[in-house]
């Protein structure tokens, strides 16, 4: 069963940036693209479990702060060494200025 979880205010995430969101013992990363669209992925890098929210967002890429591994945060696709495993992504919606994540 899937449910929508309220995560934060849309304004909490700066344009072309990412924040961390913890819920029920899990950690997620919420992104705001340069076009003001919102996305969400698992919060930890698939390489060595580092928080991606400390990384750098460039266009549709999140770069991990530990070894500069890159993912496309829109699709979760790993974009080369040292990350080899894709990130899990989650549907996001914005309602009345609030961000909701649909967690599987």
């Amino acid at each position, binding site marked *: 069963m899937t449910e929508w979880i309220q995560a934060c205010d849309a304004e909490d995430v700066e344009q072309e940036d990412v924040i961390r969101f913890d819920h029920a013992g899990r950690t997620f990363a919420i992104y705001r693209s340069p076009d003001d669209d919102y996305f969400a992925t698992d919060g930890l890098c698939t390489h060595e479990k580092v928080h991606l929210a*400390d990384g*750098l967002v*460039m266009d549709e890429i999140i770069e991990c702060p530990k*070894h*500069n591994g890159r993912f496309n945060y829109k699709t979760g696709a790993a974009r080369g*060494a040292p990350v080899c495993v894709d990130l899990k992504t989650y549907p996001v919606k914005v309602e009345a200025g609030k961000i909701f994540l649909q967690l599987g």
Partner: protein
Amino acid sequence: MIENIANTLSGMQVFDIFQSMTLGLMEPRSHLGEAMMNATVAADDYRPTKRDYSLIGRDARRAVEIGLSAAEWYHTDVPRKQMKELMKRDDGPAIRDTMIWLGVLIQSGAGGALLWGSWWCVPFFLVYGVLYGSSTDSRWHECGHGTAFKTQWMNDVVYQIACFMIMRNPVTWRWSHTRHHTDTVIVGRDPEIAVMRPPDLVRLVLNFFGILDAWQAMIDMVRNASGRLSAAERTFIPEMEQYKAIRVARIWLVIYLATIALAVYLGSLLPLMLIGLPRLYGAWHHVMTGLLQHGGLADNVTDHRLNSRTVLMNPVSRFIYWNMNYHVEHHMFPMVPYHALPKLHELIKHDLPAPTPSILAGYREMIPAFLRQLRNEDYFIKRELPPTAQPYREEFHAEGKTTAE
């Protein structure tokens, strides 16, 4: 996990554990608690034993078992807004520096080739050698991190060129450097420890001329080209990437064989003076700066302020070295491009040991430490923090030497 250990044991017990680890007294255990209980007992039974730097050896297993590998490392607090500014990528500085680098490289190489046979070629080859055999160390490094250029293909192109010149397989060394950042100077885990304890001084001196490194690189290249990876390489290169290491080694082997064939055909050393040998006669600068990164400092700690050294340098060396003299800063925040490291240094220097004021000062500190490590391999240089810094955990430094001494 290291934090958890510290919370549950007294400072002395924790010191015992780290001393035991570095002395090689703890036997591998499958259970962390059991290993820690044995550590205190083992420390009473002091006897110096060699560190095991093998990536598949005793200390490697131990580091994983006690959580020293892939541990949480100390970071200075930097507000996100400022960190984002510092991490920002820009093609401009790296394009400018690469044009200067390649421009001078080509001109000095051409000058050396034209004047080949007279002593006038010497200064040209001195410049060419450093740009070929030393500048490529930092270009390999920065482009490997993907931070030098904003545009990724530019990082990739310069990375491949630099790897060829510095004789580092681009696949193997990308993964070894990843491990170096996960487990910086953790014995048995870090494949890039330049000065192992006790130091092999003959090896260090020979490597100023690239002799052992280049020889080893050739052996690795031939082995990889024959389709084989060493057991150590297999510990850090994922299986799906291994074929790439083999493919590159084959291409390089063809280039070197062609260069040797040309030298034989011409009856001249000149082709090898331009390809291959500069890795020897131009290596001295990257070895000189590289040894300063961690030489003589602590091992098996999880705070880069203790095991890395920031050294203030002249602008020419900083150009060759692409600001890697800000080494504590780089390890703490590998996302910050080389051109922003001086700014990062200004921002966090209140939390770091004072930078070593020059290359010479670095060697004045390091050489006596190496000599002392010949007698006592557990000796290391203790870094002093300014009063404005967050303290580090003293148990790491119970046996050290303060830089103020």
